[in-house]
């Protein structure tokens, strides 16, 4: 097929491997993503906290700098599990903002203009299509969560020595898996919403709603029924329990209040009520269920053509 001839001709050149074909989707999606100046700015802002954390780690091991700044090392945050837990929570929160900006148009843009048949009539399966779109979120969120987390961890290890590294080696798994659970949950949730809603703005709103509305509702349940079970419907609270568990900082009893209780034992008596967080396995189960529902939704919605029953 030559421009000057304007004739149809078959392609007889080399073909790409299956992996290269798969990478076409994230490559194009990332190119489109970074056309947005707002997103690029937020992406850069996501690295402020890792920078602060790196400086903190550096200050811990630099007496001259501490003296210059007139800071006592005991005034700084200790570099331990809680330091990295805070880091993971902060960066995952930034990751959520990124997801709200990046993920909603990924599938909805293709669905609103009926582009799915064009993707799926090519040597690309539905799973590969979804994984290709998902890899955009996974890649971006990895850049702002576990990758800087592990870099800071190894930076601390290089300054603190082998003994510290050996004693805290388990934290590598905690940082990586804590972030990856959040990344997978967010990307599946965002893609499921993106496949359900054809308009980008509505999809972004729905994603924010899924995050904040159950959280608020869960808090209302907690207050009304003097419990902490409402946290099960809050994504953030459930993830916080999981992160705490991974970093060995999970505490079930997070409070105690005095309240009147009417049960077969107590007849409207004033008693001490322990506020217990849901068990860790329940939090894991909730996250697994949400992921399963998202996968099911994606399997139903991401089709070349919808069969209407």
């Amino acid at each position: 097929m030559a421009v000057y001839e304007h004739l149809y001709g078959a392609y007889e050149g080399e073909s790409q491997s299956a992996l290269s074909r798969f990478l076409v989707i994230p490559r194009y999606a990332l190119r489109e993503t970074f056309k947005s100046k707002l997103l690029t700015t937020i992406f850069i802002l996501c690295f402020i906290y890792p920078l602060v954390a790196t400086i903190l780690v550096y200050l811990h091991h630099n007496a001259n700098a501490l003296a210059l700044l007139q800071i006592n090392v005991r005034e700084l945050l200790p570099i331990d599990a809680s330091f990295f837990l805070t880091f993971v929570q902060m960066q995952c929160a930034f990751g959520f903002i990124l997801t709200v900006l990046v993920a909603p148009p990924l599938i909805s843009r293709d669905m609103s203009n009926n582009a799915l048949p064009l993707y799926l009539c090519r040597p690309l399966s539905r799973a590969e299509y979804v994984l290709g779109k998902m890899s955009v979120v996974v890649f971006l969120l990895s850049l702002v969560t576990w990758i800087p987390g592990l870099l800071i961890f190894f930076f601390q290890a290089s300054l603190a020595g082998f003994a510290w590294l050996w004693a805290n080696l388990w934290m590598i798994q905690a940082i990586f898996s804590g972030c990856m659970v959040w990344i997978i949950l967010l990307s599946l949730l965002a893609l499921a919403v993106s496949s359900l809603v054809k308009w980008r703005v509505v999809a972004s709103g729905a994603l924010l709603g899924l995050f904040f509305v159950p959280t608020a509702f869960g808090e209302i349940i907690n207050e009304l029924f003097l419990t902490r079970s409402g946290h099960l419907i809050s994504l953030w609270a459930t993830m916080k329990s999981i992160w705490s568990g991974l970093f060995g900082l999970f505490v079930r009893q997070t409070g105690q209040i005095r309240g009147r209780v009417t049960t077969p034992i107590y007849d409207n008596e004033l008693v001490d009520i322990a506020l217990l967080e849901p068990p860790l396995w329940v939090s894991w189960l909730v996250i697994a269920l949400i992921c399963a529902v998202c996968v099911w939704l994606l399997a139903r919605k991401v089709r070349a053509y919808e069969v209407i029953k």
Partner: protein
Amino acid sequence: MTNVIELEQLSVTFGKRPILKSLNGALGGRAIGLLGPNGAGKTSLIHTLLGFHPPTSGTARIFGQDITTDAKQVRATVGYMPESDSFIAKMSCVHFVRLMAELSGIPAKHALERAHEALFFVGLGEARYRPVDSYSLGMKQLAKLAQAIVHGPKLIILDEPTNGLDPPTRSRMISLIRQIRDGGRARILLSSHLLRDVEECCDEILVLKDGRIAANCNLEEERKANRKFIELETRGERQGFVEAVGNLGCEYALSGERRMKLIMNETIEIGDLYRLAHEHAVQIRRLNFKRDSLEDIFLKAMENGNITEGANSSINNEKAVENGNGRANDGGL
């Protein structure tokens, strides 16, 4: 000619509703027309061939590759132009076509070049940097054609390519399809409601009705066969003439006092009929070549149910005359 598509007891069911019912056959034309009324299963057949719907039973092969077990290889050899609007918003046409080329396996460095070429080929060269969503309907159809051919597929599946096009754009689309067909580098499967489009582009047709094959004909052979069918109107005592025509080896049938229909065998020329008429003092007042239009074939397929290739030419013609809906072409004699 190698078979492009082979159907082997192919059945597709949506829920409990059968959509395609045990389709059997082999299609080998350069351009195959897929015809049928609404809901006949044309688009479902295309979707099944592309692997969008799994067959409930049976299978199909495209260039010998099974659509279920070799789905990816099949899709690598196929280009598909869907019926409805399909594009990616806010993306320039050249990038859209390039993306589609890369997804088909063409390396990035060649994909852009192919995208430019495909867009020039379909006539969107000047508009290739505009976003596809800013295109008119006709331009969108051409963009869809460009993405279907950009990777140089061996089979191009076109689903209603002339839908909603104005006459000049329709002519352009038909001319492009014919150009691709005549180039011989790709086979075409064209699904259309418009018989004229299929007649202009295709040399083989598959007519579907209620999920079954109602007709599978080679149009070229059909036309050749029909050329031998002749309708005569005579004046004068015709008994001797009729016997003489019969002695020439022609099958004939008399209708009324003046009309006769005959199927000429290959050794007889029209001039022989005039010579016999002269010898028996019979005037030939009218001589028509009778041929079935695609519309006749389609309508008969809808009435009869199942017509298979090679078994229908004379029967079809008879019925066309009886119904009075055959198109009579003046032989110019």
